[in-house]
């Protein structure tokens, strides 16, 4: 059973990051409603287990190439709540210093490739990260995230093929949240599982319950260990559901309410919470303690972000080039 190899501390760490992700995003939604956010807001509520489960399976010097619903993974790699919120408020203290917004940030020193909008663009880039590891004989792995929608793009195909031919240490991880914006799976592809596409590249493909954080972790850990041993890339698909609009402006009225209802019952955090309690790793006291820590971390981040200055543009024209 997945999870049995983990210590309580490790399990609670996963719990913490799931909750931190949920809590921070909830806070962003509030800030959005208060009109404090600049631009769109992309929420991963209900699919945090994919980001967190995956990142929890990585080693500290592994790299991630996140997509727009991977806050949990970014946090685990060391992106801070403060930086995250400052980015949403378009502040100078955000990771792009106000030059880019919301989910478009990264820091290679912490192993996070900065996400960019064109879907699937980071998949070839991740292949290149893996190539660098391979050439330098480093036993590092890169985890590359993408959505079901992104899997229709040419770059998905080129990247998976390239990585497979060269046996690069990449774990391709799909958030199959059943929609690309308003477009349901059946209008995107004529296959049941995105994991089935792995066949086309001669790599292992596995579909897991994306709302089971330990199942995700186990699948990614397995794929990462294969990759680390030089056996090449894998494709891990997490089946999940986008529980909110594409972005916060979208009321997602095109999503059948029954579908949401069904998936609400499978909430990954509720499930993991129940599991931990069952395993006697979590009780009310610990839960409350963690909730307080989280609340503190989040509120400090909000204060930080709100009190941070906007960029003043004195260096507006600088930094187009590194030299």
């Amino acid at each position: 059973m997945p999870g049995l190899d983990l210590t309580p501390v490790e399990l609670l760490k996963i719990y913490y990051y799931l909750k931190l992700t949920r809590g921070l995003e909830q806070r962003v939604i509030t800030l959005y409603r208060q009109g404090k956010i600049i631009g769109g807001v992309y929420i991963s509520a209900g699919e945090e287990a994919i980001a967190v489960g995956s990142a929890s399976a990585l080693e500290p010097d592994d790299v991630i190439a996140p997509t727009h619903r991977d806050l949990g993974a970014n946090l685990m790699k060391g992106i801070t709540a403060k930086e995250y919120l400052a980015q949403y408020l378009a502040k100078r203290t955000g990771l792009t210093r106000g030059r880019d917004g919301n989910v478009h940030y990264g820091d290679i020193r912490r192993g996070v490739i900065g996400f960019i909008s064109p879907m699937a663009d980071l998949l070839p880039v991740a292949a290149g990260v893996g190539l660098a590891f391979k050439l330098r004989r480093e036993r590092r792995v890169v985890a590359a995230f993408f959505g079901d929608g992104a899997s229709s793009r040419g770059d998905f195909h080129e990247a998976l093929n390239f990585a497979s031919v060269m046996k690069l240490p990449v774990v391709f991880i799909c958030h199959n949240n059943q929609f690309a914006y308003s477009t349901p799976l059946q209008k995107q592809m004529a296959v049941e599982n995105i994991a089935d596409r792995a066949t086309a590249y001669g790599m292992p493909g596995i579909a897991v319950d994306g709302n089971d954080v330990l199942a995700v972790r186990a699948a990614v850990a397995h794929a990462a260990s294969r990759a680390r041993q030089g056996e090449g890339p894998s494709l891990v698909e997490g089946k999940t559901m986008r529980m909110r609009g594409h972005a916060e402006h979208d009321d997602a009225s095109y999503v059948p309410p029954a579908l949401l209802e069904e998936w609400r019952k499978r909430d990954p955090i509720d499930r993991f919470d129940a599991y931990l309690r069952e395993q006697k790793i979590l009780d009310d006291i610990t839960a409350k303690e963690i909730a307080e820590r989280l609340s503190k971390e989040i509120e400090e981040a909000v204060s930080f972000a709100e009190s941070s200055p906007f960029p003043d543009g004195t260096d507006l024209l600088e930094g187009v080039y590194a030299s």
Partner: protein
Amino acid sequence: MEITYLEAIRQALWEEMDRDERVFMLGEDIGVYGGAFKITKGFLDKFGPERVIDTPLSESAIVGAAIGAALMGMRPVVEMQFADFIACAFDQIVNMAAKHHYRIGEPVPMVIRAPYGGGIHAGPYHSQCPEAWFFHVAGLKLVAPSTPRDAKGLLKAAIRDPDPVIYFEHKYLYRHMKGEVPEGDNVVPIGKAEVKRKGSTMSVIAYGAMVEQSLAAAEKLVPEGIDLEVVDLRTLQPLDMETILTSVKKTGRALVVHEAPKTGGIGGEIAARLAEEAFRFLDAPVVRVAAPHIPVPFSPALEEMYLPNADKIALKARELANF
């Protein structure tokens, strides 16, 4: 009656779909959702899923498919969700669509609608003005309306045109810009600029969102006795040099304005053509107002510094008037 720029685009699409059953639309989220900007809202109900096609997230396939359908005599209208993602279909546009008629002699009647431009706090990936990428490519027509009337009339012209047309619709104008639109089937011809304001001190040559800003600059300058003539290009390719030259020969001065970065923008070509074709008439150098050579920054203050506007145009116009 005054309608918005967005409504004008909607009407043109609706009327053309109604008029000619060869016309159909394809793009991401244009059907059930009605498009990221809700331009095609209601189309699915009226025209059905065969003529309002929600596609997978794959710009190259969308454009390629439009080319194929156009070759078979259809009149496809592609919606890019944001013009920024046209980069993903670049090869199909420049290598397949653009060159086909010159090489083979067969028309490729298709329209790519490209929602472009900044001013909506959307950062480097949802604000670009990519028209210059295509301006250099023989075989494409490029239009960029600045008013509801032109938006409607030019889209009709584009759909009826036998060549591939990229229709740059400015996102900032969608809901900001209102204006009268003539009753009936009013087509604005491709290839014709229009003097939007008569004036004597200098010719301001602009397009898209910069026309409104140029007109505002003109009003600002009235008290100073500076009288701007504002030429709205409307079509970028082929350029209406006749209208430009007539204006500049009259005023003796030219200020070219565009929102895209100055370096390598269309303004350079216009300035060069003016030098080549109206040197003796120029009392002063052709001057350009455009964005700096950086990605479109996200944070509002930065974006404001980045974007040309009425004040910046007025400033340059004053300098030019005093040259």
